[in-house]
């Protein structure tokens, strides 16, 4: 009887943990994508102060530990009078860290666009920003999507770190459930497959869909 009750509570807590992991993954992915795109573009700006800022941003967020960064936002910033909620820290702490890697993907993909495309844009007198938006970015996005897929799967798995700032996400919930019921095999198996299923059912199809969308004209396909 006692055992069943514990099991019931544990399953409910686990379901909540899954939802929290999903929400944090989604929100911090958005932060990572938006900031990664902005910083990646800034990183190759013609203006050196912007470029310099981009380099500093990437070096900081990519070069130091994600957990230590999260600790800074959560435990150190309050010393300076800035108290952030665990949710804000989770979403922006993870998102900004990953955006450092993302910015490098953006930079590399844009610089990897064929030189002929730049030359054609100059020959057609396209303004730099228009050329970036209409010509280079669509081609760069297609090239960087597989790498972003990897990065977002990695981000998903990094969300377990927010246990350290008091949020009970999937890994924590599994551990608590396992502790409460003594069934370590079951609950850690659930956690193991839980991440896999989220990655496989959400991130991979999303990236595949985007890849198809941005591949118009790159792959020979039947005439519509």
């Amino acid at each position, binding site marked *: 009887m006692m055992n069943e009750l514990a099991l019931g509570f544990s399953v409910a807590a686990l379901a909540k943990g899954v939802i929290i992991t999903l929400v944090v993954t989604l929100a911090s992915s958005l932060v990572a994508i938006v900031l990664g795109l902005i910083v990646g573009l800034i990183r190759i700006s013609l203006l050196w102060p912007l470029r310099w800022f981009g380099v500093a941003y990437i070096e900081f967020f990519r070069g130091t530990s994600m957990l230590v960064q999260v600790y800074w936002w959560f435990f150190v910033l309050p010393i300076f009078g800035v108290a952030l909620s665990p949710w804000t820290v989770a979403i922006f702490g993870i998102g900004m860290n990953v955006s450092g890697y993302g910015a490098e993907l953006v930079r590399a993909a844009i610089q990897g666009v064929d030189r002929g*495309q730049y030359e*054609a844009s100059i020959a057609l*007198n*396209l303004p730099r920003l228009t050329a970036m938006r*209409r010509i280079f970015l669509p081609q760069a996005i*297609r090239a960087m999507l597989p790498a972003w897929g990897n990065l977002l799967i990695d981000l998903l798995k990094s969300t377990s770190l927010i246990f350290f700032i008091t949020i009970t996400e999937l890994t924590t919930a599994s551990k608590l459930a396992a502790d409460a019921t003594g069934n370590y095999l079951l609950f850690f198996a659930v956690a193991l497959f839980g991440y896999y299923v989220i990655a496989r059912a959400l991130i991979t199809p999303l990236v595949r869909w985007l890849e198809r969308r941005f591949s118009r004209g790159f792959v020979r396909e039947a005439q519509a």
Partner: protein
Amino acid sequence: MSETIVGLENLTKRCSVLEELKLGIARTEKVMSEPMVRFENVAKRYGTLSVLDELNLDIARNEKVCIIGPSGSGKTTVLRMLMTLERINEGVIWVDGEPLTHMRKNGQMVPANERHLRRVRGKIGMVFQHFNLFPHMTALQNCVEAPISVLGLSRQEAETRAAELLDMVGLSDKKNHFPIQLSGGQKQRVAIARALAMRPKVMLFDEVTSALDPELVGEVLNVIRKLGTEHDLTMLMVTHQMAFAKEFSDRVCFFYGGKIAEQGPPDQLFGDPQHERTRQFLSAVLEAR
């Protein structure tokens, strides 16, 4: 008496109108007689390697000039400098009577800023060896992108014009195809239509048939031939198609070692080359055919 005065006034008025007309004609004549493109003592270096050395070349309005020469002779660099894809190290390039690479500031010539470059560059169009079509856009989209965002045409206007141009290059049935669905010759014809959509006064062709299968060369050359006869375009073309250069151009320039070694009407240059290196080059090229 007053009638006489009115008559005189009318006469002087007419005279001044005539004067203005004369001035206008003189201005037009001056514009017509000044070259469309002028390279004035232009030099291009990569580090210590000198690619072009004191280039002086005038190209008249509507003149068709072919540039031939061995690889590494600087012939493609001439086009790339004119398209502002390469900075020049010395000299000035003029287009349509105004400096392209420089601008006047307080009575002095200073290197052109981006705004000046963009304005003067608008008179020039270029077709590349490797097409450089935008792969994510259809043939039609390739041809309307710049007219809309640079010339400010409405989408409808731009599409009508683009459709006309695609029709002119014989591709009206391919306008909704992506570049990957087109043959090399078709791609190059789209590239020509795309360049023309910007209404350039000068068209540059950089070895536009070199990347094509031999049987597709003709369709592209036919389009260029048609352009030359039906449009008021100054054309500058780097090519290895000697027969086409001979038939099409008003003048052929033979580049060697970063200089124009010899230039002249095609009959003279192909028929009676003066320079030893020209003779060698031509016999080697013609032998290979």
